[in-house]
């Protein structure tokens, strides 16, 4: 497996078939870990970083037997485009892409697992699952963490738990995030109510997705704020318990919209689909916005000829770095917008060469 092979695949987490996948796009858990015998990244010398990278790469690759094939990428060697590509696939963070010095990422087959070395912490383990699967993601990441902890000395404090570069992650180092598609709650203007109730139980909501500030219509990420004083199980349960309630509200809002304004809704969805299939130039922001509408249309049965997996793929493949990797040339913004429109037309109009270079 090589980095370029990923261009032709869709990460396991995007397959759109996990539990509640019509509303929950993905579940992600990450663990922040540090080695006891090195300074945190902010005080690490170039030599320290190189030593940490070497040591952790070696240990991480040893878990291969239990976790399947791992592709190791030296992020510091990659050009800008490839780094952005990994960010768009959620395999590394934007910070990791833009950082300096020795750093790398180990990627599991199916792209469910990624292990970032020398991000904000020495090691960031991430598990990304399709749909709502907090427990499944936790079981997997817990196992990987155990395997690695047998080979290294994690910085650990008897009272404070796992020690992290930022005190916001100390304790368990666990961040559980669920990415939800909530178009009906947005349309019915109830999304703020949901936000307020989540804040009361100290869950954070971000109306953002993926590539840093890249817009993605109606997608919201819900995650735990607290990492200390609650066990991993409690953190997992907290998110697991609250997400079904939000799903329930979203479904109610969808039913309401279908009942009260099906025609308007159908019109909006059809127009969005129409623009995506016919535009000659289109920005990434507009694409996200329209794809979100079409996604809702599929879930409401208003669009029948587009499978969810295909639609999900478009979220990834219309991002700037993906477009450029697929087309094989570096493009400026204006040319990207033309290429994006061309790609969408071919993909959605089912022309023979339009399945994104799969054949």
């Amino acid at each position: 497996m090589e980095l370029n092979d990923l261009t032709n695949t869709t990460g396991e987490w995007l397959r759109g078939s996990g539990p509640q996948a019509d509303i929950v796009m993905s579940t992600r858990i990450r663990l922040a870990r540090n080695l006891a015998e090195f300074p945190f990244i902010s005080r690490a010398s170039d030599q320290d970083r190189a030593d940490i990278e070497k040591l952790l790469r070696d240990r991480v690759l040893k878990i291969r037997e239990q976790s399947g094939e791992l592709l190791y990428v030296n992020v510091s060697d990659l050009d800008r485009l490839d780094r952005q590509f990994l960010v768009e696939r959620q395999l590394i963070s934007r910070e990791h892409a833009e950082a300096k010095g020795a750093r790398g990422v180990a990627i599991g087959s199916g792209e469910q697992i990624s292990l970032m070395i020398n991000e904000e912490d020495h090691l960031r383990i991430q598990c990304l699952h399709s749909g709502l699967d907090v427990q499944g993601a936790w079981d997997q990441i817990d196992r990987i963490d155990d395997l690695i902890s047998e080979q290294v000395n994690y910085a650990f404090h008897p009272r404070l738990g796992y020690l992290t570069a930022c005190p916001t992650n100390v304790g368990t180092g666990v961040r559980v995030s669920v990415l939800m598609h909530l178009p009906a709650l947005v349309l019915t203007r109830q999304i703020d109510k949901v936000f307020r109730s989540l804040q009361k139980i100290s869950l954070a909501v971000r109306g953002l997705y993926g590539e840093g500030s890249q817009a993605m219509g109606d997608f919201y990420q819900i995650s735990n704020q607290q990492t200390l004083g609650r066990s991993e199980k409690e953190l997992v349960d907290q998110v697991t318990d609250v997400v079904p309630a939000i799903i329930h509200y979203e479904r109610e809002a969808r039913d309401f919209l279908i009942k009260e304004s099906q025609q308007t809704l159908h019109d909006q969805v059809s127009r969005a689909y129409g623009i995506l299939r016919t535009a000659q130039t289109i920005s990434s922001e507009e694409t996200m916005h329209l794809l979100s509408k079409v996604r809702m249309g599929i879930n409401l049965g208003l669009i029948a000829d587009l499978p969810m997996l295909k639609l999900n793929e478009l979220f990834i493949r219309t991002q700037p770095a993906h477009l450029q990797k697929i087309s094989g040339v570096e493009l400026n913004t204006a040319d990207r917008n033309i290429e994006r429109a061309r790609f969408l037309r071919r993909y959605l109009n089912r022309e023979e060469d339009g399945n994104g270079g799969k054949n």
Partner: protein
Amino acid sequence: MKCQKCERPATFHITELEGGKHTELHLCEQHARQYLTQGEGEPGSAPTIAGALAQQLAVGQTAEELAQLDQRACPICGITFYEFRNQGRLGCPHDYVCFEKELEPLIANIHGETVHKGKKPKHGASGTQQRTELIRMRREMKEAIEKENYEKAKELRDQIKKIEATQE
């Protein structure tokens, strides 16, 4: 809902934890981008929750107390509390011990708790102190080389090797 900074519709809803309370921001795309990228490209100046909170908590102290506190440095990695307040990132695991008193209210503010309840590493956390010492020794070795004190650097290198060997 309108953007808080202009007339466009707010499509981004960002929740920030700051000063122990949540603040909601409703922004249009352009302003959200601006907000989220502020401080980018200037390392150390990016506002972090911990940094912002540390700034706020320090307000209660007198200027003199603060100046004294800020100058205190971790004996292991050398970071001062002032540097931490500015960048919101700690320098090494030992900082949690040496700045314990200062970090305690900060941690309580962020998490509402101060005692870990979760899993422990499989590898016992024993010998942590000796491992932390490695951070100091590597730093001192680097400083010795910079000062061309190769005698001391060699001594430190041998000690480091010895400790590393016992850990394999």
